[in-house]
């Protein structure tokens, strides 16, 4: 159990997916201009990430390894993720039309979020078990959500700041992200791997 909790801490803080491993940067820069959209994106991504790490694990252990076609994993995983996204969208639509109207626009974007495919691939590379895969997925998703919401808060303030003209827009956002990454380096060395 301690191992699993450490895995979450490791994926969320120490090796934060966005700021240390550079995964999921597109939504990090794209939907972080307002806090409420960042919140919507975080919830949708958390759900899909957890679901797709289970799906990728099952696909790998039941299909790819028995048939000895591991070189097809990229193709198989991206299809599994697309299916997971579509499934989530249908489930949310059926269960809560209100939630669907909030999350709806973020869901299709998640298919090309490299954090989702990244978690699936890292789970395979590190030979995680099913439980480890799920917890690694949860850790990655909570790290992503934490950083996304924090960054959205910073960017809302940045809009009011007086910034030299060449640095406006994406430039200052990236430099701010750099300082956040610097802060997250304080966590390094807290867990192994």
């Amino acid at each position, binding site marked *: 159990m301690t191992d699993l909790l450490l895995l979450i801490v490791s994926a969320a803080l120490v090796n934060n997916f966005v*700021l*240390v*491993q*550079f*995964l*999921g*940067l*597109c939504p990090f*820069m*794209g939907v972080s201009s307002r806090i409420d959209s960042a919140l919507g994106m975080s919830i949708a991504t958390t759900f899909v990430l957890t679901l797709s790490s289970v799906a990728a694990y099952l696909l790998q252990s039941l299909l790819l390894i028995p048939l000895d076609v591991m*070189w*097809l*994993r*990229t*193709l198989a995983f*991206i*299809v599994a993720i*697309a299916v997971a996204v579509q499934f989530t969208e249908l489930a949310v639509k059926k269960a809560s039309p209100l939630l669907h109207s909030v999350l709806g626009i973020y869901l*299709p*974007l998640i*298919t*090309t*979020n*490299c954090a*989702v*495919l*990244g978690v699936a*691939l*890292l789970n395979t*590379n590190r030979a995680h078990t099913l439980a480890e895969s799920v917890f690694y997925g949860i850790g990655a998703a909570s790290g992503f959500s934490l950083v996304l919401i924090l960054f959205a808060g910073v960017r809302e303030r940045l809009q009011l700041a007086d910034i030299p*003209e*060449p*640095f*406006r*827009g*994406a*430039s*200052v*956002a*990236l*430099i701010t*992200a*750099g*300082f956040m*990454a*610097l802060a997250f*380096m304080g966590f390094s060395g807290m867990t192994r791997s």
Partner: protein
Amino acid sequence: MRLATVWLDGLWDRNPGLIQLLGLCPLLAVSNTVDNAIGLGFATLFVLVISNASISLIRHLVDEAIRLPAFVLVIATLTTSAELLIQAFDYPLYQSLGIFLPLIVTNCLILGRAEALARREPLLVSTMDGLAQGLGFFLVLVSLGAIREWASDTIILAALPPGAFIALGMLIALHQAIQKILKRFRSKPQPNTQYRRVRTTGDIP
């Protein structure tokens, strides 16, 4: 005329790395050394050119409703080919690129070009666009790699994750500053609104 715009857009005016901010993940992650940057730059260029060409060829066959899954499958197939080729011919590079090689599938630049241009334009324009955008991405990736590798001798931060963010931020600021000076000399207004993007990262001019 058309091709000139395509090249200018890819290399400078709408550079994927500096303006459209597409494909940020590999850009920041793999720019720690020049060797890695060149390897991934070539792999991305390879996938982008062939995917643009093949999507342009099948553009009349693919139904509007299922185009995204179809494009993703084309891109995933090409990425797997690139992965197997690099694994066969340059195993050390394959190991140092790690998961960023299979992650070319989710590089938004490639799906973005398919969605914005290749599904409407004939073969020649699409291939040229793939080449131009791919080269634009390649140049940013390699210059970022060179800056970080050179700077890491004196400033250790440059080789670490925060250095990647800050270096790219500085490059974008430099690009914007040069663009502002260039604008004074160009009489023709540049904004290009005809591209619809899959993803909105950064500001739409």
